């Protein structure tokens, strides 16, 4: 029974990862034969500061995306967890962003965020903020991409939280009300504890989505300005496809895998109540 699953896992997960580990120990451009260099690719990534900068940028991006998409998704789910046509329309509208292709979303936002002609630039000028280079200012561009990502994936978080809310027994909430619990107390002591497994799932999928950010970077900024939006996956793409450095790209891939695995496990452990109480 396990055979097909093991075969798929070995073919599409274990084997590529093993190849990445092997290639990370080489200097290779796909054209000339690979040369074994040991851990030199890792050492260079560390010594040049490139790895720390990449991980730092990616973690900052992920922190904004995960925290905002989770909290907004939860708030929207709580607000829209009721019957009614208007509420159903709003739910669909919020979720629609999630099903639109990343390229379309990115192009739309590039137009809205243009530093001279965009709607947001006009708003910033009206507020006396001057010219804000949402996509051209190194200090702002990463946050801009994070906010666009939040806009795109919040609908998914909302839907998953809505499903989670259906599993919260109404009699528990009614009992809490009879005991005099207000809305906040009911949420804190009844709803949230029962939603924690759902939150763990949303948090983990948002974390993975934020770490895998590529389309939004590729279309909107190509990693710039001044590497401000060069996140891990985009850096891997740059190394292998633009700079012809398969070894360094593979080293980044291995680091990426280790980092994402560690963070996912940590997040699951924390959100399920430190010891699997969920």
């Amino acid at each position: 029974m396990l055979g097909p699953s093991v075969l798929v896992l070995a073919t599409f997960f274990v084997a590529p990862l093993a190849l990445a580990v092997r290639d990370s120990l080489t200097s290779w451009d796909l054209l000339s034969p690979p040369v074994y260099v040991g851990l030199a690719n890792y050492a260079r990534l560390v010594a040049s500061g490139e790895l720390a900068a990449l991980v730092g940028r990616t973690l900052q991006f992920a922190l904004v995306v995960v925290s905002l998409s989770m909290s907004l998704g939860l708030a929207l789910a709580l607000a829209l967890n009721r019957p009614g046509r208007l509420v159903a329309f709003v739910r669909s509208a919020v979720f629609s962003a999630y099903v639109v292709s990343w390229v379309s979303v990115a192009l739309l936002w590039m137009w809205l965020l243009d530093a001279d002609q965009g709607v947001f630039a006009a708003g910033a000028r009206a507020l006396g903020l001057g010219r804000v280079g949402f996509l051209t200012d190194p200090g702002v561009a990463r946050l801009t991409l994070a906010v666009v990502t939040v806009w795109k994936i919040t609908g998914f978080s909302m839907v998953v939280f809505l499903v989670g809310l259906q599993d919260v027994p109404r009699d528990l909430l009614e009992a809490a009300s009879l005991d005099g619990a207000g809305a906040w107390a009911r949420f804190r002591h009844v709803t949230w504890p029962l939603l924690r497994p759902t939150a763990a799932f949303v948090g983990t999928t948002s974390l993975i989505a934020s770490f895998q950010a590529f389309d939004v970077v590729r279309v909107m900024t190509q990693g710039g300005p001044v590497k401000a939006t060069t996140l891990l996956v985009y850096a891997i793409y740059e190394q292998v496809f633009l700079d012809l450095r398969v070894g360094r790209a593979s080293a980044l891939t291995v680091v990426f895998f280790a980092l994402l695995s560690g963070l996912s496990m940590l997040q699951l452990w924390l959100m399920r109540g430190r010891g699997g109480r969920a």
Partner: protein
Amino acid sequence: MRGSSRRAFVAGASLALAGCGRAVGGGRQRATLWFAYGGKNREVLLSLVARFNASQARYQVTPTYQGDYFECLAKTRTAIYAGVAPTFTHVVGEVRPYLAGAGVLEPLDDYPGASTLGLVPALSQRGSYTGADDQPLWAVPFNRSTPLLYCNAAALDAAALSPPESWDELVAAASRLTTRDGAHTTRWGYEVPIDWWFFCASLAQAGGSLLDATGSLSLGGDAGARALRLWQRLIHDERSMRPPPGRDYNAWQATNQDFLAGRAAMVCTSTAFLRYMEENARFSVRAARLAGLVRRAVPTGGTFFTVLRGAPPAEKEAAWAFLRFMCETPQAIEWATRTGYLPVTEDAVATLRRSGHYERSPNDAVAQAQLGDAVGWPWSRELFRVQREIVTPRLEAAVLQNLDAARVIADARREAAAG
């Protein structure tokens, strides 16, 4: 039964695949071409491929679009590794020494007519590189270009300006052409992608070269710093230049769009867009040679056709037939006049001159005349690495963050020396 059907299918598919790349219906020899760039260029190239296929019954070229130059190169490289590479493709000049050094290109000297193509010297392999005289012929020029200054003629006339000829004139003209509504810039005087190719143009105009006499990377030394300072001055001091958003060819596209929308009065981009700009601008487009500092200078750009060494000999023969076809005067002229790229053969240029084309299309005449300012690339396998890993990552930071230009150049040289 089911097992034998499956085996028959696999055998049939294998035979069909084996047949691919050798011959197509009617006994024609097929060659596959992977090409970059869409839009007008794609339309013109496909029409010329169709003409080639219709003009004779011996060869058939099958073109496949593969994205921009970088994407096409990445796919070609991966395909070479996987053993499914096309017969021929076209690659940018900076990467050709690297590919030649890796042994994946076919030397073309011994193909019939290779020495009598009549190429424009500045656009041929020998004229496009320094230090390449002893190299075999690795490539045939295809879509060759140089940077060109595009001016909004109405804006120039309204400001009683003529196209700038020196850097000081460029700075002054950009300031005059910049219009503001309070803090909002409604039109930028000048725009150019913060990109390696345009940096190399400025570096050469400042009297520098990428490599010093010993062959080491120098980035022009002080000339390189002056090139950076020109952009810093225009962006930060004069606030008359908009650094376009995006990187690589996305920034080029943004530059074109800003010019066509009237958001930039002068832009520096490739001659490749000459026809596109003329046909899509709602104002008269006036082309001009790039301004100079100690001299006028431009690097050449665009791509050369290259045949891949690993292709079967019969496919290479078909590819070579197509390359010769593209170098014939009618095709060289059509490709150039319908796109804006420079005609690659001397006979094509002479024919255009005799026909009065350059009088009718003065912007083409400017682009052609500027070819006299062309400077060659060093034939170095490291050229590509210098571009991608040493210069390009630093340009954006140096210009946008107004870093000390001399220090940026010194750091780049140090890193290049350290390998």
